[in-house]
């Protein structure tokens, strides 16, 4: 099975987001990390490959299972690919461009599909949603551009009939689930929590240095922000709740005030 995993580099969870003077982007002098659900997408791909290799279910005469990690991002994003290679991806594709952070979900989906033109994947995995822009759309748009079926909010993946079909467990609201099944090639948008994430081993980190990393650019693919179909006019920090009370002082003083408020709210 040939699997593409789309990874986005996003500002670290605890990074302070500060708005640029133009009010349309955030300052990029923050630490970056791989978007969390994308790590779960990679994990799902690695497990699928391991199960096929171990279970001997590699169809005879078919090419080896292969996992390809792809990112659309500026130069810094190559770090995300190196991490994916160290964890076990076989090769990587970096669609490089300084303008990548300005692209909307549609333009990124164009970049992804153009970058893999001519290749055929059985499965394309994305995260469900990026922690930064939060469009929650890129995977579905990739599916539409490729004419492939898709499913979102996926918690588990099971290959059917070798690699001709795929079954996936969809999460629904309120702790309910549903299995869906479709022919491959298919696109699945992965939800966080699909299994425990692995760490890269020292061996993996060493091997990653020799794995192929293909570079292409947004320019070569003809993708630029003018392809965007939605435009950010202004970014701002939302207002705090009117009437909310911030308790100040040392931790002990804050705790004393809070204890008093709690007793008032829930008298015992």
């Amino acid at each position: 099975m040939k699997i593409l995993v789309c990874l986005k580099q996003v500002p670290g969870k605890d990074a302070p987001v500060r708005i640029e003077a133009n009010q349309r982007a955030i300052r990029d002098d923050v630490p970056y990390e791989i978007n969390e659900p994308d790590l779960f997408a990679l994990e799902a791909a690695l497990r699928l490959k391991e199960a096929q290799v171990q279970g001997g279910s590699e169809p005879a005469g078919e090419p080896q299972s292969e996992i390809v990690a792809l990112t659309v991002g500026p130069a810094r994003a190559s770090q995300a690919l190196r991490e994916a290679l160290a964890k076990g991806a076989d090769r990587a594709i970096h669609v490089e461009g300084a303008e990548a952070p300005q692209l909307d979900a549609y333009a990124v989906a164009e970049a992804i599909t153009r970058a893999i033109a001519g290749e055929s994947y059985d499965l394309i995995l994305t995260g469900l949603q990026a922690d930064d822009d939060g469009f929650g759309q890129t995977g579905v748009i990739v599916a539409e551009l490729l004419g492939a079926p898709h499913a979102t909010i996926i918690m588990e993946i099971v290959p059917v009939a070798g690699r001709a079909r795929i079954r996936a467990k969809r999460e629904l609201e309120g702790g309910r689930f549903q299995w869906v099944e479709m022919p491959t090639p298919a696109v699945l948008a992965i939800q966080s929590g699909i299994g425990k994430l692995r760490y890269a081993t020292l061996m993996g980190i060493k091997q990653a240095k020799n794995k192929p990393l293909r570079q292409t650019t947004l320019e070569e693919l003809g993708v630029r922000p003018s392809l965007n179909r939605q435009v950010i006019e202004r970014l701002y920090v939302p207002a705090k709740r009117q009437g909310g009370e911030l308790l100040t002082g040392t931790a002990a003083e804050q705790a004393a005030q809070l204890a008093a408020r709690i007793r008032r709210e829930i008298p015992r």
Partner: protein
Amino acid sequence: MILVVAETHASGEVNPASLEAIAAAQQLGTGAVCAALLGGDASAVAALTACPIERLYHGQHPSLATYSPDVWVQALVQIYEQAQPTLVLLAHTYQARDFAPQLATRLGGALISDVTGVKSPAIFIRPMYQGKLAAEVSFRPDIPGVVTVQIGAFNRASLRRDGAPAPVTMVNVTPDAPRIEAGEIFTEAKQAIDLSHAPVIVAVGRGIKDPKNLDMARQLAAAMGAELAASRPICDSGWLPMDRQVGSSGQTVAPKLYLAVGISGAIQHLVGMRGSRTVVAINKDPDAPIFEIADYGVVGDLFEVVPALIAALQASPGAPPD
């Protein structure tokens, strides 16, 4: 005209979030609002035609009995072509997440997702950076627009229709056979804990850092007579069982008091607890979105504040309020 695509629950009833979407369409104030319904029974038709809409487009086809994104998109494109709306609007449900980006792309347009407000008929407000920032977003001119609105962001209380039910136009849609086969909807292990009636809840998030620190949270819960709950990452990691999870994919709670410890306040968490009477938040980040809904906020390190709070609560349990 704005076309609101309604969603029905498995039980057949119209998702209340779809009524909020109708309210949002009205609030945009750009004129007529129509609704579209795929499949659905007479009670769903009645619920929608009792709303202040101009017309209901009711898509009919045997394969509309169960949801499949392919089928939904094809059916809605047909209704779109017949109705010629200027904007399509729907609730940001899991189902909408699944097909709305495909619909927008099929139409040659775009989806602005998870909208919480409108600045003008052409500028929508949506969260970014996990709710730490808000963005004003517009469509590129002259493309079809699809908007999903966040559940709970628009008030449906004002939806009133005077007079007879809205007229219904039947649309016999002709989707291809679905490529995606959907199985039964099921729940995993039986919910052992029902948090929906808990009067007091202490909920912990990723700020708790390590499962061994949960003991501290348990002590706090005990001191307050509270049930312990958590954000999704805590349950994903197996630190607490799934049935302690609060949020869109977990339980919906409405206690008298909800104390959020080390929880950032992502929207998927907030939708599960914003009905709480009093919300208290302890978080070291003054910009954490949880403070947008907190009645009492403590900006500080939970590893200092929580032990101090436990001590303060234990010091004089029966003391009168200050």
